[in-house]
C-alpha cells in the first residue's frame, strides 16, 4: 500500500519452479518475489496451483526444477524454512489436544520447556486477543470442542506466533470467520506488514484480496499469468485476468434443452442464494445437473443432504452414489470386478433375498463389455488401474435400479480417454431417463451438464444453462462478490 515495493531484498524468491504429480503439472516454471513489508495476494481457480506453490514456499514440498531462496536458504530443513509460517485452511491442528498444547507443538523453540503450559497459554491468549478481541477461546479448550471459526482463529494465531517470523502464508484465512473477526484480522495483517513482515494471502474472496494486498498474482494452470498492483485493479479486471466473465442477466437464454423442460421434477433441495433469497436446486427426469464452483463451497453438502434423504429435500425414486475417493470409499478390495460391479444391483435382481446368479452374470457381462474393463469380470479389482477402477465404481451405480445418480467429483485423476468414455455413458443414461447430480471441481466437465448451479459459501451464486455453462461464467460466479457486497 504505502511501501515502495522495489526496496529491499526479497524475503522469498522463486525462479522457474516446477512441480509435477504424476501426469499433472502442478507448477510450471513459476517465478515470484515476496518483499518484506508487503501483502501479496494470490488468486486463481481450482487446480491453478496455489496450494502447491504455498507448500513449496513453506518447505513442505520439494520442487522438481528451478531455484528457491527463502530467508537466505535454498533448501528447507526438517521443520521447513526458518522464519516462514503458514496457516492452513483446515485440519492442521491436533483435534485431541487442547489449544496451548497445539501451540507448544509448533513453537517449541520459543517456549521454555519447564514452564511450557503457562507460557504457551499466555502466548496464544495474548495473540488471540490481539487479532480477535472477542474470541472467547480458552487456551485449555480442546480443539475438538471448538467451532470451525474458532479453530481458524487458533490456526492463524498459532502461525503468527514465531519469534523470527519473516514470511506469513495465509491460506483462505477468512473462509470460516464472521464479519467483525474478518475486519480485526485484516487490521492485524496490516500491522504485521507495517512492522516489516512479508505476507502472502491466498483467497478467493476478491474484495478482501483487493482491499488488503499491495500486489496480486493471478495463477492459472500452474503459472503466475499476471501480476497486478492492487490499487489499479477492480474485481472485474481481476476476474478477466483469471479468465472469468461476469454473466449478464439479460444474456439468459431459454433455449437450453427445451424438451427436458417439459419433464417432471424428480428432486428438490431448498437452498439460499448469495443475496439471501430462498431458492431450490432441482432436477428433472433425464437431466444432468451440475454443482460447480470452487472446491469445498458446499457442493458435497448438497450431495450429502440428498444421499441421507434429509427431511427438507424431496426425492422421487432410488438413489445411487459415486464417491470421489475411490480407494477409501469406492472399491471393495478383496473382490473381483464382477462382484464390485454387481453389489448395488444385487438386491434389485434378487428373489426373496436370494441372489439370482444368472441375472447377475448377464448384467456383469454386459457392463464389462460396454466399458471394456481391462482384465475382464474375474480380475481382482485392485489389479486394475485407477481409471478402470473408477469405471467399475461408476458402472456399479448405473447398473443399480436407482433413478437418480449422485456423482461426487469422481473423475479426478482419471485419464482423458477414460473420462471421455464415462461422459458418454453419463449422457446415454440421462437419455434413458435417469437424473444425474454431478459435482465437479473441473469446470470443463460441467459443460456436459444441461444446467449447473455455481455454489459459493454453501449458497447458490448462480444458475447456468446449456451454452451458458463455460469456464468463464463459472469463474465469474465463483468469485464475483460485487452483487452481495453492494447489498
Amino acid at each position, binding site marked *: 500500500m504505502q511501501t515502495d515495493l522495489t526496496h529491499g531484498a526479497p524475503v522469498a524468491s522463486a525462479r522457474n519452479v516446477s512441480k509435477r504429480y504424476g501426469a499433472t503439472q502442478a507448477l510450471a516454471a513459476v517465478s515470484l518475489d515476496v518483499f518484506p513489508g508487503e501483502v501479496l495476494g494470490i488468486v486463481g481457480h481450482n487446480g491453478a496451483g496455489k496450494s502447491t506453490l504455498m507448500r513449496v514456499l513453506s518447505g513442505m514440498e520439494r520442487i522438481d526444477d528451478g531455484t528457491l531462496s527463502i530467508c537466505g536458504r535454498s533448501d528447507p530443513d526438517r521443520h521447513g524454512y526458518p522464519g516462514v509460517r503458514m496457516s492452513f485452511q483446515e485440519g492442521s491442528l491436533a483435534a485431541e489436544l487442547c489449544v496451548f498444547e497445539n501451540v507448544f507443538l509448533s513453537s517449541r523453540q520459543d517456549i521454555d520447556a519447564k514452564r511450557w503450559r503457562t507460557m504457551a497459554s499466555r502466548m496464544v491468549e495474548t495473540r488471540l486477543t490481539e487479532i480477535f478481541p472477542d474470541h472467547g477461546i480458552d487456551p485449555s479448550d480442546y480443539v475438538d470442542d471448538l467451532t470451525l471459526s474458532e479453530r481458524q482463529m487458533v490456526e492463524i494465531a498459532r502461525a503468527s506466533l514465531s519469534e523470527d517470523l519473516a514470511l506469513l502464508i495465509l491460506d483462505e484465512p477468512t473462509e470460516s470467520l464472521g464479519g467483525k473477526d474478518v475486519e480485526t484480522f485484516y487490521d492485524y495483517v496490516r500491522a504485521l506488514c507495517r512492522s516489516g513482515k512479508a505476507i502472502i494471502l491466498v483467497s478467493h474472496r476478491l474484495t478482501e484480496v483487493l482491499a488488503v494486498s499491495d500486489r496480486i498474482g493471478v495463477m492459472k494452470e500452474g503459472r503466475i499469468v499476471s501480476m497486478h498492483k492492487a490499487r489499479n485493479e477492480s474485481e472485474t479486471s481481476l476476474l478477466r485476468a483469471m479468465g472469468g466473465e461476469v454473466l449478464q442477466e439479460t444474456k439468459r437464454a431459454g433455449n437450453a434443452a427445451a424438451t427436458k423442460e417439459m419433464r417432471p421434477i424428480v428432486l428438490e433441495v431448498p437452498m439460499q442464494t448469495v443475496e439471501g433469497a430462498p431458492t431450490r436446486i432441482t432436477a428433472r427426469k433425464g437431466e444432468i445437473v451440475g454443482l460447480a464452483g470452487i472446491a469445498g463451497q458446499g457442493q458435497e453438502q448438497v450431495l450429502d443432504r440428498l444421499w441421507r434423504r434429509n427431511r427438507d429435500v424431496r426425492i422421487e425414486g432410488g438413489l*445411487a452414489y459415486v464417491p470421489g475417493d475411490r480407494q477409501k*470409499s*469406492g*472399491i*471393495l*478390495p478383496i473382490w473381483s470386478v464382477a462382484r464390485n460391479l454387481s453389489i*448395488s444391483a444385487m438386491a434389485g435382481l434378487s428373489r426373496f433375498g436370494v441372489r439370482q446368479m444368472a441375472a447377475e452374470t448377464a448384467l456383469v457381462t454386459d457392463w464389462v463389455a460396454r466399458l471394456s474393463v481391462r482384465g475382464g469380470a474375474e480380475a481382482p479389482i*485392485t489389479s486394475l488401474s485407477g481409471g478402470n477402477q473408477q469405471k467399475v465404481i461408476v458402472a456399479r451405480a448405473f447398473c443399480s435400479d436407482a433413478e437418480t445418480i449422485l456423482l461426487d467429483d469422481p473423475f479426478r485423476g482419471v485419464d482423458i480417454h477414460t473420462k471421455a468414455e464415462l461422459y458418454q455413458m453419463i449422457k446415454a443414461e440421462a437419455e434413458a431417463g435417469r437424473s444425474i447430480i454431478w459435482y465437479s471441481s473441473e469446470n470443463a466437465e460441467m459443460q456436459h451438464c444441461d444446467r449447473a448451479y455455481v455454489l459459493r459459501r454453501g449458497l447458490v451464486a448462480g444458475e447456468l444453462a446449456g451454452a451458458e455453462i463455460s469456464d468463464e461464467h463459472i469463474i465469474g460466479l465463483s468469485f464475483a462478490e460485487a452483487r452481495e457486497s453492494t447489498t
Partner: protein
Amino acid sequence: MNLRALNGMPPWAWSFLAAVLVLILTYGISGQGDGQTITLALTVAPYLVLVGLGQMLVMTAGPGNIDVSVAKVFSLGGLLSIAVAESTGSWLLGLGAACGVGLCMASISVIAILLVRIPPIVATLATSLIASAISLTLAQGFQGSAHPDLRAFLNWSPLGVPAFAVVVAAFTLAVSWILARTVWGAQLLAFGQARRAAQFAGIRATRILVVVYLVSGILAALAGALRASFSAPNVELGNDYLLDSIAVVVIGGTLMSGGRAVPLGVWGGALFFILLDGLLNLIGWSYAGQNILKGFLVLTVLFLANGAPLIAPSAASATRKQPLSPETEPDEAPHE
C-alpha cells in the same frame, strides 16, 4: 515353502491339515490308532463350532467388530435352559429359553454399539458382565440336570459319527450358502472389507451389524444350553470359549479385518484345537501351558495372514491398513 501352491489352497484347508497333523502325532505318541479319538473330537467340537460361527459373522463385519461376551452368554444359556427344562419338563422349551436370553444379551450389545456408539469390544464386555451376574444369581443353590432325551441324543454316535455333529455340519453348510447366495450375505462381506465403500454402494450398516451380533448371541447361548445338557451346567462352563472361538475362526481362514468368512474353516479350527488339547494332555502339559500355546498359535496365524499380501499382491494390501489384531482401534467402530 512353495508360495504358489500356498496361494492356490482353499483358505479352510490349512486348519484341517493342522488337525490331521495333530491326530497323527497323537496316534504316534499314544501308540494306538483307533477311531475313538476322532469320535470324541467330533462329539465335543460342534459346541465350539456353533460359537465360532457366530464369532465369525461378527468378525466378518469389519475391523473392530468382535463379540467378547460369548463365554458368559454360553454359561448363562446353559444354566437357564437346564432350569427351564427342569421346571417345565420340556427340553425344547429349555433350548428356546436359552435362545431368548442370548437374544436379550446380544440386544444389549447392539444398543450399546449402534445407539450409544460404544466400541464393540467394550460393549460386549459390558454385556458379558451382565450375563455373568445373572448366571451367578441363577447358580445359587442350583440343582438341575439335563433332560435325559436331549442328553441321549447328544451322546448318540451311530457308526462312530455323532449325530449332533452331523446336524451342526448341516448348519455350517447353511451358513456358507447364506454368505454366498443371499443378498444379505454378500452385503455383509462387502461391508466388512470396506465400510464406507459399502455404504456408498447402498448397504445399511444397521442391517448388517444388528444381525451379526444377535446371531452371535443366540448361537453362544444355544451352544451353552446344549453343552450343559451334554455334561452339567456350571457358571464357568463357557470360560474357554472366548479365546477358543476367536482362535478357531482365525485359524480357519476368516480374515480378522473383515470381508472374508470361511465357515468350513471353523470346523477345521475347532477339530484342530480339540485334538491339540487331547495331545497336550497326553504329553502332560498344564492348562496354563496349553493356553499360552493357543495364544501364540493365534498370533502366528495373524502374522501369516498379515504377510499374505506379500504372497498375493492382488489381495489388496494397500487399501487395508487396519491392524489385524483383536485390539483394533475403537475409532473404526461402528458409528451408524
